[in-house]
């Protein structure tokens, strides 16, 4: 018993710095955002006196709903696209010789050496009406002179997939590396076709990696601001852009906070639900 409480105490001491950091710079500001959402806006860009639900009521505005829906499906498509590309990469990374593996992992990481903004602007150049991709598609007859690549939701999805792909490849590779590939032989031996072995044995085998990858892409993607701002245009606006507009254009912090609250809750609620469900499922197995 004594030993136990002492262990607990040491645990607290060790985790105190990180807990303190998170509380001060994450939890408290988040609470501020929740509080601001319930304050009226002052015409000078600050906070008015008293409390109001006006900011939350205004969220029902159809223009917000359209953007919210777009944010959701762009994020979903980005996540799906990243997974589709990352799973085969992770699978093969785990199977090739270690020399090649290090080389390919290097290739995955190299883009981080260039500033994120510069890479997004590079996409803007590529997708530009006078850009390389447009010319290429036109010479192949796949695009007419009127086709727009830039300032389109598809451009946001494309560039988002490009940006988030490394964050999906790495956890999926880590999970694949721990996967026992003899299980695929066993599945084949028991009559499964290659594809059946892949989705009945391999995918469940790396499910933790997949879960991490989904979190790493879907959540940041919901809050995307820079990518839709640079390559999305008005047709590709996401919630992040709306929040930025309320802050920088309208100087309406409470309204921006209300939008942020919706974003935070929409990420947090499903996550908490999943965690609770998992704990409920695991409990009987512990005893």
């Amino acid at each position, binding site marked *: 018993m004594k030993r136990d409480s002492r262990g607990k105490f040491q645990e607290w001491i060790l985790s105190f710095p990180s807990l303190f950091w998170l509380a001060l710079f994450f939890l408290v500001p988040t609470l501020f955002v929740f509080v601001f959402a319930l304050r009226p806006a002052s015409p000078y860009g600050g906070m008015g006196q008293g409390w109001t639900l006006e900011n939350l009521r205004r969220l029902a505005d159809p223009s917000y709903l359209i953007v919210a829906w777009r944010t959701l499906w762009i994020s979903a498509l980005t996540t799906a696209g990243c997974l589709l590309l990352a799973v085969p990469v992770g699978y093969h990374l785990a199977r090739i010789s270690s020399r090649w593996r290090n080389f390919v992992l290097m290739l995955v990481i190299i883009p981080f050496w260039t500033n994120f903004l510069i890479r997004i602007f590079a996409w803007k150049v590529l997708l530009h009406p006078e850009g390389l991709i447009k010319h290429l598609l036109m010479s192949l007859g796949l695009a007419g002179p009127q086709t727009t690549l830039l300032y389109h939701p598809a451009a946001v999805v494309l560039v988002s997939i490009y940006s988030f792909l490394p964050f999906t490849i790495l956890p999926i590779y880590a999970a694949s590396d721990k996967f026992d590939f*003899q299980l695929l*032989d066993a599945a084949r031996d028991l*009559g499964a076709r290659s594809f059946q072995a892949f989705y009945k044995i391999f995918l469940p085998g790396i499910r933790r990696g997949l879960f991490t990858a989904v979190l790493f892409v879907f959540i940041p993607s919901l809050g995307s601001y820079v990518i839709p701002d640079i390559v999305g245009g008005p047709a590709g606006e996401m919630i992040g852009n709306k929040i930025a507009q309320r802050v920088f254009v309208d100087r309406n912090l409470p309204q921006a906070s209300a939008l942020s609250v919706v974003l935070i809750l929409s990420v947090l609620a499903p996550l908490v639900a999943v965690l609770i469900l998992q704990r409920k499922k695991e409990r009987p197995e512990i005893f």
Partner: protein
Amino acid sequence: MSEFLEFHNVSKYFGTIKAVDDVSLEIKKGEFFSLLGPSGCGKTTMLRLAAGFENPDRGRILLDGEDITDLPPNKRKVNTIFQSYALFPHLSVWDNIAFGLVIAKRPKAEIYTAVEEMLNLIRMTGEADKKPDLLSGGQKQRVAIARALINKPRVLLLDEPLAALDLKLRQRMQIELDMIHDQVGITFLYVTHDQGEAMSLSDRIAVMDSGHIEQVGIPAEIYETPRTSFVAAFIGDTNFLEGEVSELVNDEYCRLKIAGIQGIVCFNDKSMKPGSPVFLSIRPEKVHISRDRPEEESKRNIMPAVVEDMIYLGSTTKYWVRTGALRIQILRQHFRFFLDEKPIRWNDDVWIWWHADDGFMLDRYREVDESLIAVPPQKVGEPEESPG
């Protein structure tokens, strides 16, 4: 019994390594057949070729007369037990066993009865809902067997299935495997490096070395009449004697000259002519040792020797004796213990003898196989008479 699983001139190369080199082999229906050899001899590659995980570079593989060489693993009516069991960790015992039938889209009721039947066979009805992580080694092994057998394979392939178990469990699983083989009556192709396992379980054994099959036969044949020095030394222990035929006694026997010793009688089943070189293999337990000179007999080779080393093993004692330039290993069973009998000690002069039929002529001898033979331990069992 007819040929059931056949390998015809099968070769498999990995780069420049010849894992399996022009091997032909026929396994009969219902047989418990073992591939025995040291690691890297190609036995596991043979198994993987039969399962379809590897494709041969040359040759054909036939199952019940049908050419299966180009069939993928999922189209072959064979199932494998992996050394690491390869149970699916995210599925329960029940789902693991049901896997093959679920993939084959069999009716639910049929799957249910078949799985319950298998759980009964391996006596694990109580563990059906457990995940493989929670099972012991022996239980995992039994689930792996059930998962394979439920598909009613024509041949069950077993890749060192007992290697990961401890000794006691291994012995129990040996009996269990034997029982299951009798019960289901299908052909077993069993890969192992453990000669005891192969001897006790198999109907027939193929001894493999460096991609070749050295000898195929029932366990007694392999042990008593090894064709090559490798088989003789890999299965049990032996003595190699190099000599030359000096004269023929009659149609069946000849006399040999070995390391300067004349007149050693030997069964001449290879019909060797005088002057031809021979290599004899004599099992240690076939050589007798005594303080007293035994009676002369026409087919008995008797010679004096000096005890160089000995190990007491309980039921037996192992002696290394020297006679002329020869060192011979002898295994003696203790039938009776006499307190008043003077035991044989280090440096004692003794008589050793063996029957002419017990020295077996090898077809092929390689010096490197000498390394497989047990040598006396160094620094253990120093003669008592020596100072210190």
